[in-house]
């Protein structure tokens, strides 16, 4: 089954952003994931056709980057940071605890298709360690208990809001569309900065430097 006329037109707008069409391959792959949930054969074929490339060239790119999935992931994709700093401060313990809770391990999805799990590398939020990402939204300062609540909330259909993100957690597909450059209008939701980001500023103000 091919993409709809509307979807194909969106792909053309993505391609139009770049001086050379091939540069659109990454946002197009994010866009395919926003429709199909992962990089499907039809997605590869359509991108190849649009960009005048061989399907092998598109596959070569999609398999290089870990955010592009060759198999379906959950509606909520949970990433536990287990790079050194987060791991030491509790990420390893959180990962073990989540595996127990969900009955799956990294790179697996629960049978109902709801939640998938990944061990992720540093996500640039080390001052909020241990860090957990769901659909690439920040969940800061996590503990095994808080992640259990997060997972239970996802299962019950009312996940807690990201720490620094929109008011409601969006799905994997919805967030993939944002990464393709399709605005969801939620940029102004959520805090401008978390407490750790403001630490130095607050100290400087208390000391009267400004």
């Amino acid at each position, binding site marked *: 089954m091919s993409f709809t006329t509307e979807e194909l037109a969106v792909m053309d707008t993505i391609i139009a952003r770049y*001086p*050379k069409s*091939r*540069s659109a391959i*990454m*946002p197009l*792959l*994010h866009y395919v994931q926003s429709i199909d949930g992962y990089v499907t054969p039809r997605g590869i074929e359509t991108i190849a056709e649009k960009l005048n490339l061989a399907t092998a060239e598109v596959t070569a*790119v999609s398999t*290089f*980057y*870990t*955010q*592009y999935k060759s198999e379906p992931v959950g509606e909520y994709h949970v*990433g536990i940071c287990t*790079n*050194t*700093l987060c791991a*030491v*401060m*509790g990420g*390893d*313990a959180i990962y073990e605890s989540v595996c127990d809770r969900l009955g799956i391990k990294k790179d697996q999805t629960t049978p109902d298709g709801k939640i998938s799990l990944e061990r992720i*590398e*540093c996500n*640039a939020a*080390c*001052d*909020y*360690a241990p860090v957990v990402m769901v659909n*690439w*939204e*920040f969940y800061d300062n996590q*503990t*095994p208990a808080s992640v259990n609540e997060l997972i239970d909330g996802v299962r019950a259909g009312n996940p807690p809001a990201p720490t620094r*993100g*929109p008011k409601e957690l*969006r799905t994997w597909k919805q*967030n993939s569309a*944002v*990464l393709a*450059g399709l*605005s*969801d209008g939620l*940029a102004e939701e959520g*805090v*401008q*900065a978390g407490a*750790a*980001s*403001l*630490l*130095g*500023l607050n*100290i*400087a*103000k208390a*000391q*009267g*430097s400004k």
Partner: protein
Amino acid sequence: MSLLNPVLSAHWDEADSFTIAGYQRHDGYKALAKALKATPDEVIAQIKESGLRGRGGAGFPTGNKWSFIPQGDNKAHYLVVNADESEPGTCKDMPLLMANPHSLIEGIIIGSYAIRANHSFIYLRGEVVHVFRRVQKAIDDAYAAGFLGKNILGSGFDLELTLHAGAGAYICGEETALLDSLEGFRGQPRLRPPFPAIAGLYAMPTVVNNVESIASVPSIIQNGVEWFQAMGTEKSKGYTLYSLSGHVTNPGQFEAPLGITLRQILELAGGVRAGHELKFWTPGGSSTPMFTAEHLDVPLDYEGVSSAGSMLGTKALQIFDETTCVVRAVLRWVEFYKHESCGKCTPCREGTWWLVQIMKDLEAGKGSEADLEKLLDLCDNIAGRSFCALADGAVAPIISSLKYFRAEYILHQTNGGCPFDPVASTLFETAGA
């Protein structure tokens, strides 16, 4: 007088700091109007004179980089911002973009004007959706306000700006891999020369700058070169963001003139977490050789850190206390580099694989002292033998940890395994720890 000096972070405590209204309330986009009244060469000269150096790790003077772009060559020029922040421990650009994206947009417009670029790009790592939203909205609002697009502020200067999401590849933080990725290929580093200034994006003259470097530009234009030069040290001018994380009482961002020390920052942050002491730390991410308590007074500027045997890097100060097993920490970093090696150069692709094998044995207490020599020999054969610096980063934690903690590696062998309790190093250590 405080040791800190918030500039980029000065208004992050205002709820609308990320909006164009919030930015303009504090003189936002005034530097742009000023820059557009000068000639492009005058703008380059100002940035050169200010002494601003790259904040992404290498510390190359920003103005010099701009001046390498050939002029009058009738070619398209590009400014590409590296927002692929992924170096373990590094967490400054994401909060900056979340709270103050317009400082980057304004810097991009000024920088593009200076190097005569009419299309610029922000390459943002893909694993931060809300940051993407904030930056995209900032770009949209800048277009609507006439700061982007055709004939900006009536100057005759045109600029298109495109936000591009990465998709999870640490190597794309390396500037030539980033360019390959942006062109739609696997993100693998290029052999230099030619440098991006001659043949960068689409083989055209290109400047690749870090987020913080470009975001610093408007403040220099607005407040003047002397203002910027008055901060920092002799060869490391200005202010910068230091990111403190790990086993400290209060982790967070500290914006200060270059040259502050870890001891001073730790004092402000309430020290190492209660009841514990500093064991080792990185000055600028995992690729920078680790330091110990003996380096608490090293000035955190480019020269200070490098003369003490490491690199300022991204100023990612990761603090580990005495509960942390250094072998475990290093193994995890080396596993990261193995995972992120793009596979192009044999010493890195094969070497990081072997490093992990040996480190795993050592951590499990199955190694021998001869393995430590083999490890160092491997490091010697990996470092400096690839197109990019990823492999150099992979060996840095190994070599530096063996320098300071060789006895701990041996202890794993005599103990028949790791002597540390991993629970003790977590933030939620239990009563039994």
